[in-house]
């Protein structure tokens, strides 16, 4: 057949070599860039299977959603506080003075086709982004994944969390609505509270006194360019280090400090993680479709002399708001100067302290344990009771503060006096972390002693004999629970799937024909 002059499908195919067009593409790329060796290693990269490893993926994918929806929004948003008279689709605002930033946001919501959906997706994705970072961080912390050699990646992660919080705050400040403007005013006052430099800092950043007309354009460029760029760089470094140092894994059969056990990048993990990307996007789309968020047209354009009741920031700022609420009014005044400790301590020193502890934790733990070994196997939280207790204490501290950011709503809802709610939280913020930490420590200790922990309980059949004797027989374990004696093995190159067209027919398992044969 190859003798015929006319090229047939088959002869063309044969000329391309055994791997067809893909093979040719690999050849061409490899000639120029030398990708084959490294590419193969990448395709074979192993991803350990554990649900908690998805938390970081949620962050990554919600960031992608943020980029995509953010690009859409940036095409319509006008970052300007110039006051204009609104004459648009939303009639209740007709004839009112609004800023251009606010007007363009209302226009995105009502006049841009699909605009409201994208706006709400963007806002939800930001909340999901911060939330998944915190959960991911909790996973890393509680399993000791931050230990040597991964301290640097832990640091990068904390920096990204700080940036994400700033990015979120700046982002929801942009529409210049009544609530975000109030948040901005509070942010201004917090910066103002810093001794020595506060008034200079605010004067420079705001281009004069609050509110000025420069802060929205400045925040805009910080929000759409500077922080996303830094985040992109840090994400690249975060993932680059992850590839270089390879994943951690929980201890298990065949798993050692010197290998990674799981499923391969291509095609298994790639399919699963791309599917997950779609699911995260879908989740934000569904939230954006059915769960209203930040309906700024109800709030009105920012007017510094107006305010609404029950003002709360987005959730990732709640802990700071709670700290501001329960702080006593300790202002220092003397020597011709004022230090507003009632603001400076809870809103500047306290978060600074929290993030410093986070950043230094790997070093603190190394100092404490003297452990300078390389760790690739994760800890079960119960086997590190002190660290777990510290993590739970920190989490409960922040959670209590978060709850304290709605003292007024609670007082109204439960018909308590605001004073008793306030004092409840002042005490709770000290007591809850200690109690939670102690309980966690004790629980971890208890769990260590429980036989077969982490495994499913097996049912036991109780027999009553004719003589009135009781005896028990354990039921056989469920198939999932039988420890499989698999020797983990390297990824096969090729998995043939021809016989699959036979439908649901049971395939001969021990057949020598090698229906699913892998060879190189």
């Amino acid at each position: 057949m190859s003798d015929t002059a006319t090229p047939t499908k088959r002869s063309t195919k044969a000329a391309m070599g055994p791997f067809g067009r893909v093979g040719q593409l690999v050849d061409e790329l490899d000639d120029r860039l030398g990708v084959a060796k490294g590419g193969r290693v990448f395709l074979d990269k192993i991803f350990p299977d554990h649900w908690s490893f998805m938390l970081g993926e949620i962050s990554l994918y919600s960031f992608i959603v943020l980029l995509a929806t953010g690009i859409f929004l940036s095409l319509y948003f006008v970052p300007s506080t110039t006051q204009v008279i609104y004459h648009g689709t939303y009639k209740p605002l007709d004839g009112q003075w609004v800023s251009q930033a606010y007007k363009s946001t209302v226009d995105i919501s009502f006049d841009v086709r699909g605009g409201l959906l994208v706006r709400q997706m963007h806002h939800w994705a930001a909340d999901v982004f911060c939330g998944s970072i915190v959960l991911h961080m909790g996973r890393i912390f509680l399993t000791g994944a931050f230990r040597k050699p991964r301290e640097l990646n832990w640091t990068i992660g904390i920096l990204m969390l700080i940036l994400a919080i700033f990015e979120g705050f700046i982002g929801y400040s942009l529409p210049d609505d009544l609530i975000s403007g109030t948040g901005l005013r509070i942010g201004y006052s917090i910066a103002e509270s810093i001794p020595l430099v506060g008034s200079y800092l605010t004067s420079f950043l705001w281009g004069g006194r609050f509110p000025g007309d420069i802060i929205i354009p400045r925040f805009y460029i910080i929000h759409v360019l500077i922080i996303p760029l830094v985040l992109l760089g840090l994400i690249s470094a975060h993932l680059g280090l992850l590839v270089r140092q390879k994943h951690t894994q929980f201890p298990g059969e065949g798993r050692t400090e010197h290998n990674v056990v799981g499923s391969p990048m291509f095609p298994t993990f790639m399919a699963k993680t791309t599917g997950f990307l779609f699911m995260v996007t879908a989740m934000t789309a569904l939230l954006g479709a059915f769960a209203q968020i930040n309906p700024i047209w109800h709030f009105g354009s920012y007017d510094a002399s107006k305010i609404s009741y029950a003002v709360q920031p987005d959730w990732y700022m709640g802990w700071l708001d709670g700290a501001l609420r329960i702080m006593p009014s300790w202002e220092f005044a003397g020597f011709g100067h004022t230090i507003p400790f009632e603001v400076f301590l809870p809103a500047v020193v306290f978060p600074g302290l929290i993030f410093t502890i986070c950043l230094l934790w790997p070093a603190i733990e190394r100092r404490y344990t003297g452990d300078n070994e390389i760790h690739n196997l994760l800890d079960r939280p119960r086997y590190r009771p002190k660290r777990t207790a510290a993590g739970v204490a920190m989490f409960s501290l922040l959670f209590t503060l978060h709850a304290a950011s709605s003292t007024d709503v609670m007082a109204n809802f439960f018909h308590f006096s605001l004073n008793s709610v306030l004092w409840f939280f002042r005490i709770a913020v000290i007591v809850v972390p200690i109690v939670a930490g102690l309980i966690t420590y004790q629980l971890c200790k208890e769990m260590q002693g429980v036989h077969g922990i982490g495994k499913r309980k097996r049912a036991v059949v109780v027999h009553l004999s004719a003589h009135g004797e009781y005896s028990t027989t354990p039921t056989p374990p469920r198939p999932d629970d039988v420890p499989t004696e698999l020797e983990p093995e390297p990824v096969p190159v090729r998995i043939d799937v021809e016989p699959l067209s036979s439908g649901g027919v049971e395939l001969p398992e021990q057949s020598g024909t090698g229906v699913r044969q892998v060879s190189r």
Partner: protein
Amino acid sequence: MSDEQPPSRTKVPMPVATLSDPHMGDAARHPARVEKLIAVVFVLAIVCLAGFGAAYWQNADPWVLGGTVGAGLALLGFGLTAWGKYLMPQGPFVEERHPLASAPDERDAMAAALVERSTVVVKRRKMLGGLFAVGAGIFGIVAIFPLLRSLGPLPENSLEVTDWRRGTRLVDSSGRPISRGTLVTGGLMTVYPEGTVILGLGPQPYITENGQAIDQTVLIRLQDQNFTTQPGRETWAPAGYVAYSKLCTHLGCPVGLYEQQLELLVCPCHQSMFNVRNGAVPEFGPAPRPLPQLPLMFDDEGFLAAQGPYDQAVGPGFWERTT
């Protein structure tokens, strides 16, 4: 079977996976069922995503747009994940983890290169090194100027001043001055200095930025005769009109709530409460200082005006604030 397979380019011995391989999940042994299910899921996804296109074309409500695209993407994602989970090799496969650390001699070589080479050319040229460090350091410091100082003006005394002067009339948000009978006893309104509320630009008055953010003042009528909130302020509240800066001394939110029975001004941000009878001393919450009181008088035409500016900086505390 193996002779039917295309020859590989390099001979690397690789392990063999067969259907009997325990690595293969149940679903992988009955792939046709899973395949059918995933196909159905993908078809539904296609329908949803096409529906999104149609809904967008018809300019449907946002919830229809989000519902269709969300359901479509969720189905696509579910199908793809199921494909990966049930029809692709799951492992456990193993990758060896090669130590990141280099061999000791390679480390030594790098350290040696750093140290030895620098000894002669860098370390012994201390003056050059010092001068370069000074130059780079100075650049670092002067570079801060354009990065920071160009951003805005020095604060100077800007935080201390408002637009209230002696004789400045109080006007409401529609620019009307306040006369003796404007407020009934117990009434309250937000006032601005005359000139910050500009009429005629549009259907509604335009209130300047300063007027809104700095000068905003809350005016309350407590009773029908002159009222003294604090010693030394005997003339500040003619006909029971008292005026306080509306900027909370905690974080600068407008003190926008008034508890009329208790005569407390309440800041909705962090629940600071100020007693309007005794000079707005904070009775509850994190605010550290009373709201500054604006001394009032009736001018020649019988309208309320300021006797003078606030006697202190309004709003939250800052380093330069003197009390």
